[in-house]
């Protein structure tokens, strides 16, 4: 086997405002506290072998973050989970862990889509969101201006929104779920999702509830059941 453990973890309300780098540092320190035999890269400045799924936007919660940790020896995934959870700060929690096969592809290359749960607290806009999604389904393109470090450019984000469902209004506000593109090729940002559906992402409570490899209309998570969604 590979000595690599892939695991799914949460990023809860206590730590939702951590940046990706803050999270990386925090998870590394927890590995050291748990005395887990992490493996180090070769070279001038050895780094622990730890990699993650695509960075979560600051402020967004998650029930489905993924990590791959390389160890110096084979670890029992259950034992890893117990030891690591003991040292993780509030808000981070490993939900499941498996040892990775030797030839398994890298984490990020197995992900190109995400499912997001959006809550608009104290807002009653279920009808508006429904109508907007109806309208979008009839549109081939929806162009927004995307600001990046290299400048800004126009981009058609309509193809990156696959599905909107479960639009309801309840005591907490308006809720719905979205399946969107994620990663380097077809990435939909939260502000762009807001622009598509007509809500302010800064006022929304957003949770990443799944990450997948999308093949046609099937969605495969990086861990666990190989069945599609």
């Amino acid at each position: 086997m590979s000595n690599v453990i892939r695991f799914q973890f949460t990023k809860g309300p206590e730590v939702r405002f951590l940046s990706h780098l803050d999270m990386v540092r925090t998870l590394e320190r927890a590995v050291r506290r748990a005395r887990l035999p992490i493996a180090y890269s070769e070279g001038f400045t050895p780094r622990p072998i730890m990699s993650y799924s695509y960075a979560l936007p600051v402020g967004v919660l998650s029930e489905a973050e993924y990590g791959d940790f390389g160890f110096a020896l084979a670890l029992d995934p259950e034992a890893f989970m117990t030891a690591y959870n003991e040292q993780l700060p509030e808000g981070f929690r490993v939900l499941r862990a498996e040892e990775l096969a030797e030839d398994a592809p890298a984490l990020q290359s197995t992900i190109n889509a995400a499912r997001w749960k959006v809550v608009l607290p104290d807002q009653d806009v279920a009808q508006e969101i429904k109508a907007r999604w109806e309208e979008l389904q009839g549109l081939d393109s929806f162009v927004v201006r995307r600001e990046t470090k290299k400048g800004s450019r126009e981009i058609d984000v309509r193809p990156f929104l696959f599905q909107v469902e479960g639009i309801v209004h309840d005591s907490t506000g308006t809720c719905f779920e979205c399946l969107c593109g994620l990663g380097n090729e077809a990435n939909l940002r939260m502000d762009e999702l807001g622009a598509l559906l007509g809500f302010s992402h800064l006022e929304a409570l957003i949770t990443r509830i799944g990450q997948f490899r999308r093949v046609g209309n099937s969605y495969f998570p990086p861990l666990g059941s190989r069945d599609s969604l």
Partner: protein
Amino acid sequence: MDKRLIPLLPLVSKPARYTNHELHAKHKNWTDVAVKVALAFPDIYDVGMGHLGFKILYALINGRKDALAERVYAPWVDMQTQMEEASIPLTALESGQELGAFDLVGFTLQHELSYTNILKMLDLAQIPRRSSQRSQKMPLIMAGGPSAFNVEPLADFLDFVVLGEGEEVIHEILDLVIDSQAQNLEKDELLQKLAGLDGIYVPSYYQPIYSADGRFQRIEPLRQGIPPKIEKRVVQDFNRLPYPEEFVVPYVEVIHDRVIAEVMRGCTRGCRFCQAGMVYRPLRERDPEVLKEQIARLVENTGYEEISLSSLSSGDYSQIGPLVRDLMAEYQGCGVSVSLPSLRLDSFGIGLAQEIQKGRKTGLTFAPEAGTQRLRNVINKNVTDEDLKEVVQGAFAAGWSRIKLYFMIGLPTETEEDLEGIVDLAYKVLAWGKEARSAKRRPEVSVSVASFVPKPHTPFQWMGQDSMKTLRAKQRFLKERLNDRAIQFSYPRVEESFLEAVFARGDRRLAEVLERAVDLGCQFDSWTDCFRFERWEQAFRDTGIDPHLYAGRTRDVLEPLPWEHLSAGIDGRFLRREWELAKTGTPTLDCRWDDCTGCGVCPELQVANVLVKEKSSE
């Protein structure tokens, strides 16, 4: 944290500064304790979280059953705007309670440019600035730290001030506060009792007297039984002091984000410009075995990847070599590195640096402070040109390619020759770098030149600071000459050093200026982006106070000084003697290896230097 802040978090930079829930943050139940302390750092989280003093106090106070301590930092400007718009007052991180709900709010005074932040934080907390305006129910505002040794510009804002080391007196303070609650004492009765503790200064019990021409004459106790002079506190046994077993581990990147071991307290090198070297005496080294235990516990509890051996000059610690080697052997295998914040300017220092930086060799920093041997003798920085040559050549030969040099301009007796000395030294270092064939990369020299600020309780406390005009001319002189592409020249703005000099040797009349400056929007003065000198100029104009009299005037050695009642144990005669020796360029040796210099600290405070013994060679 304060739940009201949550909707603001998506709107501000680095929101995790405000969210709390870090590992080892202490959330005590407010109803279970008698006394509640807010440790207030007058700068943002990213700076304050690195402060060792507050880590120690946080552990000590929270270690008591009857007390709790929580952390408060200045919110960054964007967050302040959001809080003010939403009418949310400043609250403590852990409980989200407003500062006004605490019994004690303690500020640390690390440097003069943080003073406006103290007033700003009181404003944000909706607590009146002046102690005379605060009601019975308001918390007592206290302060400590190095700048407490001239706290006079802040005297009107603080209820009481702690001079010296806090580890023992904090318990005495908490006990008195608890007693006063049990006895239902008035605030003034409690302050009266606090004033009876050694090392505690209650500014409102004293009144300064100024002469007709506006000079400070003396300060008088206003009540019976109030000591005319307050001596600083020094702990009984540095080795046996409790040390935190855990540090709060921040999520966002902060300064000094690592295990900090305090290897030593105090410094006896006697650099004449250095306030820390005077006010933290005597010198005490911590036993290496004690240090190793403290470090092991902290590494285990924090998971930090770096251990820093901290003190005013860790390279001088008697057992530094063996300690570093033992720590490297213990931790290298588990991805934990060892660092030294200050290196000695000799071959021993280079050897040590080489051992620590096994991998990539980044920059090395040295502080010759002055450009000529003559001027280094004046300031008692006992480093020779030969030392410097040896150490820099050694560094290049060992593979370092970037050398950083720290200097000061505006030192006493400085001439053009001394400025040329800085230039010469920079080019010499560059030339040594080019000679060293083993350096893989092109040598780079960076020269950082600060403007000298005369500080209280140092032999230069009488000296007038160079005018801003003179300092700018000196900066220009250097800039014109340090124009090689391989030399990077940097210098802080003279306005910042000027303001620091005003407040370092200020008196109570500056309180008005501080208030006016904060009203005009001054805060975060040590952040170049936030520093607005024109607002300060207006504050001085509006209050009719001439800052130049504080910064630029050379005092007579017999002139009374506004901080003489705040004693660090240093004998005034020693300072005067050192000032005379400085003018003749005569060095004074280090009392840890040579004769007693008569600084007065040991007899005055009944203490002594403590050095750790050599390990027996068996």
